[in-house]
């Protein structure tokens, strides 16, 4: 028999997992609260480190999942555990008897306006990394007007306890450097500054990207967190930071400031989590069974996790995570469903 697997969240993790599980022969149902699949990936223009186009990546991923039953504009209404499976009622009226549930609810971008001193939504020329990606794909943004001096602020809503997030969001450094280069291409005679605390260029080719930004694009990297932004009479921005290498306060006038908003747990995900009574860790992301060997298992039997639902990840990591989750689910279903006799024991001991 074909087991039903419900995947909640139609971002990269959900899409990848559904493709994998379908190939393994399960009956996959994918739901997405938004009106289209792809999550944040669909809003991104190009991806670090080598600048491949996001839409290309997405469409190829979607091709792999053709045939999966997916419902957009759909959320979980209620979910309760039967003996082995979960009975899920969706907002579109359909109810699903899922033998396994994969929670791929992803993340939401940190609301940059919460860092009041940066004046997002108050000053005319302060935007976020997401806004900039939109600008790259659409090609226009009233806030971007032939800037001569551009600043990138790393760690906005990351590594910031006042903003309620101590953790590093992992992708902002590379994104900032990528976007800095792209802006240099767009506006070659602009000065571009990156304000960072630590440059976390941990991934393969990331350091090359950094070197390129310095050598070819002449991006200036300043080690110091931007402390305060204010607006001059002419609408340009006055930005204050410390150049911690010189141990001196620093001031610079900018025409555009880009805030690298970090990753926060998605509210929709939290909603489903609450319905299931799933625990979250201090950082607000879902807790996993153990952080080394079973990153994709939730404390609940039959409920699995993939992607940034369990904390910031890069796209390749998310995809790998989704594949891992698919394998876990496969193992779980093949384990649990054939011999139902000692099911409780099995769950206790193994799942």
């Amino acid at each position, binding site marked *: 028999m074909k087991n039903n697997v419900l995947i909640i969240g139609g971002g990269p993790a959900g899409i990848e997992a559904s493709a994998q599980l379908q190939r393994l022969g399960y009956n996959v149902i994918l739901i997405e609260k938004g009106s289209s699949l792809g999550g944040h990936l669909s809003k991104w223009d190009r991806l670090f480190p080598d600048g491949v186009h996001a839409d290309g990546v997405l469409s190829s991923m979607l091709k792999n999942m053709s045939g999966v039953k997916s419902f957009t504009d759909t959320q979980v209404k209620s979910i309760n555990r039967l003996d082995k499976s979960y009975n899920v009622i969706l907002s579109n009226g359909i109810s699903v008897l899922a033998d396994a549930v994969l929670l791929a609810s992803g993340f939401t971008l940190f609301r940059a*306006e919460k860092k009041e001193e940066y*004046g997002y939504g*108050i000053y005319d020329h302060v935007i976020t990394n997401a806004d900039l990606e939109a600008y790259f794909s659409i090609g226009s943004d009233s806030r971007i007007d032939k800037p001569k001096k551009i600043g990138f602020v790393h760690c906005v809503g990351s590594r910031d306890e006042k903003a309620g997030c101590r953790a590093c969001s992992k992708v902002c450094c590379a994104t900032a450097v990528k976007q800095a280069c792209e802006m240099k291409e767009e506006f070659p005679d602009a000065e571009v500054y990156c304000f960072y605390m630590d440059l976390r260029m941990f991934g393969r080719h990331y350091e090359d990207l950094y070197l390129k930004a310095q050598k070819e694009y002449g991006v200036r990297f300043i080690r110091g967190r931007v402390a*305060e932004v204010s607006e001059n009479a002419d609408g340009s921005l006055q930005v204050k930071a410390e150049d911690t290498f010189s141990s001196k306060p620093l001031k610079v006038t900018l025409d555009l400031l880009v805030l690298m908003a970090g990753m926060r747990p998605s509210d929709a995900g939290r909603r489903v989590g609450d319905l299931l009574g799933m625990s979250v860790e201090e950082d607000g992301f879902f807790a996993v069974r153990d952080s080394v060997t079973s990153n994709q298992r939730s404390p609940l039997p039959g409920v699995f996790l993939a992607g940034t639902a369990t904390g910031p990840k890069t796209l390749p990591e998310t995809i790998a995570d989704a594949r891992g989750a698919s394998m876990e689910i496969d193992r779980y279903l093949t384990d649990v469903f054939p011999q139902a006799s000692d099911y409780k024991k099995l769950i206790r001991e193994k799942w």
Partner: protein
Amino acid sequence: MIYEGKQKVWSDYQKDIPDDHYFYVRSCIRQSFFPASEVTFLDITRNRLGKDIFETEHHTTCGGIAYHSDTIPQETVMTIIARQFALMAKNGYENYVCSCITSFGLYCETMETWREFPEEEARIKDILWKTCKLDFAKPKYLIHASDLVYKYRNLIAAQAKHKLINVKTGKPLKVVEHIGCHYSKMFPSKGVGGAEYPYVLVGMIEAWGGEIVDYPERRHCCGFGFRQYFIKGNRGYSLSNTYKKFESMEPFHPDLIITNCPGCPYFMDRWQYVIAESTGRTYGEEGHGIPVLTYEEVAGLVMGYDPWDLGLQTHQIDSEPLLDKMGIEYDPAQKYAGKNGKDIGSPICPTCLK
């Protein structure tokens, strides 16, 4: 500048301000340099707004300035504060209103310390009993006098005789607001509008018809710095910071600066004089300075008090240009007159400032 953005922030930082029955505590500096401000404040709250605001002669300084000059230990100020609280309780009040921002910050800090370390609060309780045979209760509401004026800004506007509008041009006056550092920088939630875009003074300006100007160094300290002013050798620091602020606001051509901290108006007023005297630089129109007033003074002007009753003559920077703009009548002859027109001479007029 996107106004709606600011409104959102403001709406996030609203604080409960009680309607009536306040225990009033004075400010050392405000009393010394702007005595009329506190007089006016009490007059407005009592007589114009009909509120019950009580003051006891037994209350003292909170010791804040001494504390921030590091001359007395933290527990000393904590005990003094406890004593003030005790006086409040003794007189049956629970809404604590202080006139000084340093005090306000200190009260907030103390309350916070006690919240985090209850054992410390207990210890202070003992010390207070040991020394003064007094027992204290923490206030239900801790507010700054400017919070109160902010709360009643619209009532005041309703009674307004004048508005913050240039009667000649009909345009709103450009007003710069300066918030005392200790008002909300330490505890953003304790201040109306928070730490980044405090609304307490902006609210008044808007209610009274002025236009606020936001300039790059708005948040910057006036430079008082306690020891940085009291010791002559350090005053360069104090002066330089005010200078920095004025250089930053100059391009916006403000008509008026309104402050809610007792020290700031003194410094921003006097340092303009020093800058003019030593560099010839002035920031107001044709060689005048920019008037720096307390919120009480501004409220007073709006409600039609006589400028000289408000003590505007005790500022080094002339307020006449502002009064003219607002269309306020005044008798130049009476400016420096004593009570009942008594002649007590007049100060030498500095040549550097008009």
